[in-house]
């Protein structure tokens, strides 16, 4: 079965070539994943800080807006979103969204390398499975990159 989520004529008009190369999609997904990782950490810190504050709509988490961590998380979410838009302009959503899960490799590895947190064996197995899944996807992704580069 072939990956045919690739549009017959990739959407390369109206924009500079560099932004639409396959490499551009990889960079955009990585940038989006890195900022999303930082954002997730900030949001969790902000949510924990404001969890006990009273609110009219407690299930909406609006009290989180009182935390600077949540605002930092919002800024990072916006940056991640801009990079994400660049990625999905080029590649199919099903492929891009799966690749964006590289965030689950960055997050524990970042905590391990920077904060010195331990990674359990089960988590190592999970990280390995995510990497394996991304490697499986890398082949159709490379094919798509070739098609995009040819279209330029």
């Amino acid at each position, binding site marked *: *079965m*072939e*990956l*045919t*989520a690739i549009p017959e004529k990739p*959407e390369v*008009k*109206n924009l500079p070539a560099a932004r639409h190369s396959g490499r551009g999609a990889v960079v955009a997904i990585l940038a989006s994943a890195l900022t999303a990782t930082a954002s997730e950490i900030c*949001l*969790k810190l*902000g*949510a924990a800080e*404001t*969890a006990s504050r009273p609110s009219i709509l*407690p*299930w*909406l*988490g*609006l*009290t*989180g807006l009182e935390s600077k961590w*949540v605002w930092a998380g919002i800024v990072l*979410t916006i940056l991640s979103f801009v990079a994400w*838009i660049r990625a*999905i*302009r080029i590649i*199919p*959503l*099903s*492929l891009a*969204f*799966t690749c964006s*899960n590289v965030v*689950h*490799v960055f*997050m*524990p590895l970042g905590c391990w390398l920077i904060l010195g947190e331990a990674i*359990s064996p*089960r*988590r190592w*197995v*999970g*990280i*390995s*499975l*995510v*990497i*394996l*899944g*991304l490697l*499986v*996807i890398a*082949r*159709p992704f490379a094919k798509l990159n070739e098609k995009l580069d040819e279209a330029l």
Partner: protein
Amino acid sequence: MTALLIVLSLVTIVAGQLLLKAAMNKLGEFAKGDPRRRQAWWIFAGSIFSMTISFFVNIGLLQKLELSYLFPFQDLSVILIAVCSAYFLKERLSATLITGILLVTAGVILVSAS
């Protein structure tokens, strides 16, 4: 209530991503100045609205639940988005891509749950 909010968070994130991709497809389809691009901007606005709901529901859930409890549910969004992309956006999924999606989802659930 918690289960309902988890479902709402999932539905709004999936809808938001699908609408965003649909808007990007439409923007690529029509040249600048074409009035049909306006429709794409409305779809884009719908996607932002949907993702904003998801964002705040998510913060609300994070205030009550552990990240490790919440993540496995969120991780289902990978499969849901792939299935919905195939159905609504007519993206065809290859066996390789499906294998990759299942491996990534299994891995992510293990990472989140540990």
